[in-house]
């Protein structure tokens, strides 16, 4: 259970410190947020933009990195015609301010004190909070065994591609392509199914903590697969992204 230092949440002003483009349409924004109280991997932030006539738009983004002083990072997917994502991925520049509220959420969280095996299942942009967990594991020197199954449309849609390709002790990464596969690898594009989770995931007997994140359809399908394979539903935590992230 997350006890928040300072009590209730309030808006803070952060400034853009760094930009990293993950794909041609997804950008990681690293913000400096003075007074940031820290956060756990899996949590998210609300981001609020204000136009000069006072019009406001608020969106929610998962944190992509574990706690790092006053630095927080989010990865934003540009949605064509969206109101906020084109601004954040194309206009928002280093030094610009933005309001941030958080950290938010205490349920969908992994802490390095947990030694159990972990199974991460990401659908598209659902990789973001799970990447924070992978990075938290690395930062803490945790030996908890991790497996990641990451479903994307095409190889060009993979976030954190370089980092995920680097071999890492105790972390197994499997990418499932749903529309187009890589030229050098066999395996027809397909939607994630029982066979993928069975082969690339932990057996239910290992009682892993499972984290599933992505669009509602993906989460429903994968959560049902996990239960069908014998995983205890209480060991399956889910976070659904809706279309509100535009």
């Amino acid at each position, binding site marked *: 259970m*997350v*006890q928040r230092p300072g*009590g209730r*949440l309030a808006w803070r002003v952060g400034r853009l410190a760094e930009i990293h483009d993950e794909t041609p349409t997804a950008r990681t924004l690293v913000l400096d947020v003075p007074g940031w109280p820290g956060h756990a991997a899996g949590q998210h932030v609300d981001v609020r933009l204000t136009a000069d006539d006072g019009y406001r738009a608020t969106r929610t983004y998962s944190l992509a990195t574990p706690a790092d002083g006053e630095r927080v990072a989010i990865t934003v997917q540009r949605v064509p015609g969206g109101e906020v994502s084109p601004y954040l991925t194309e206009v928002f520049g280093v030094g610009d301010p933005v309001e941030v509220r958080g950290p938010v959420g205490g349920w969908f969280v992994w802490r390095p004190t947990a030694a159990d095996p972990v199974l991460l299942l990401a659908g598209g942009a659902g990789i973001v909070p799970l990447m924070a967990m992978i990075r938290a594991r690395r930062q803490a020197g945790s030996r908890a065994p991790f497996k990641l199954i990451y479903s994307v449309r095409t190889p060009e849609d993979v976030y954190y591609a370089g980092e995920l390709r680097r071999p890492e002790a105790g972390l197994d990464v499997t990418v499932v392509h749903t529309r187009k596969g890589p030229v050098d690898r066999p395996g027809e594009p397909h939607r994630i199914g029982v066979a993928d989770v069975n082969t690339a995931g932990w057996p239910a007997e290992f009682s892993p903590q499972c984290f599933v994140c992505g669009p*509602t359809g993906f989460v429903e399908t994968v959560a049902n697969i996990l239960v069908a394979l014998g995983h205890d539903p209480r060991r399956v935590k889910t976070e659904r992204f809706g279309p509100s992230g535009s």
Partner: protein
Amino acid sequence: MTELFEDGNVLAGPAGEIFAVDITGATTRCVGCGRADVVAALRVYPHAPGLVARCPGCDAVVVKLVRGPDAAWLDLTGTSSLRIPLPEA
């Protein structure tokens, strides 16, 4: 047909203005069917004038939250109780 709902994690930010503890891990009990769920597992329909969290079993409204200009309105009539985990006293 896939319905446009998310889950109770969406309540965390707005509820964070009201509660000093995170409520996504709190347990509700649906007055419609008696089912217990953590808030994170409720079905939330966010595309509305406010946040509506429904029971994943019977679709009854469990929690409603509206953020007005100078107040937050919280309707908990759809849950018979709210169990909030806390550190040992």
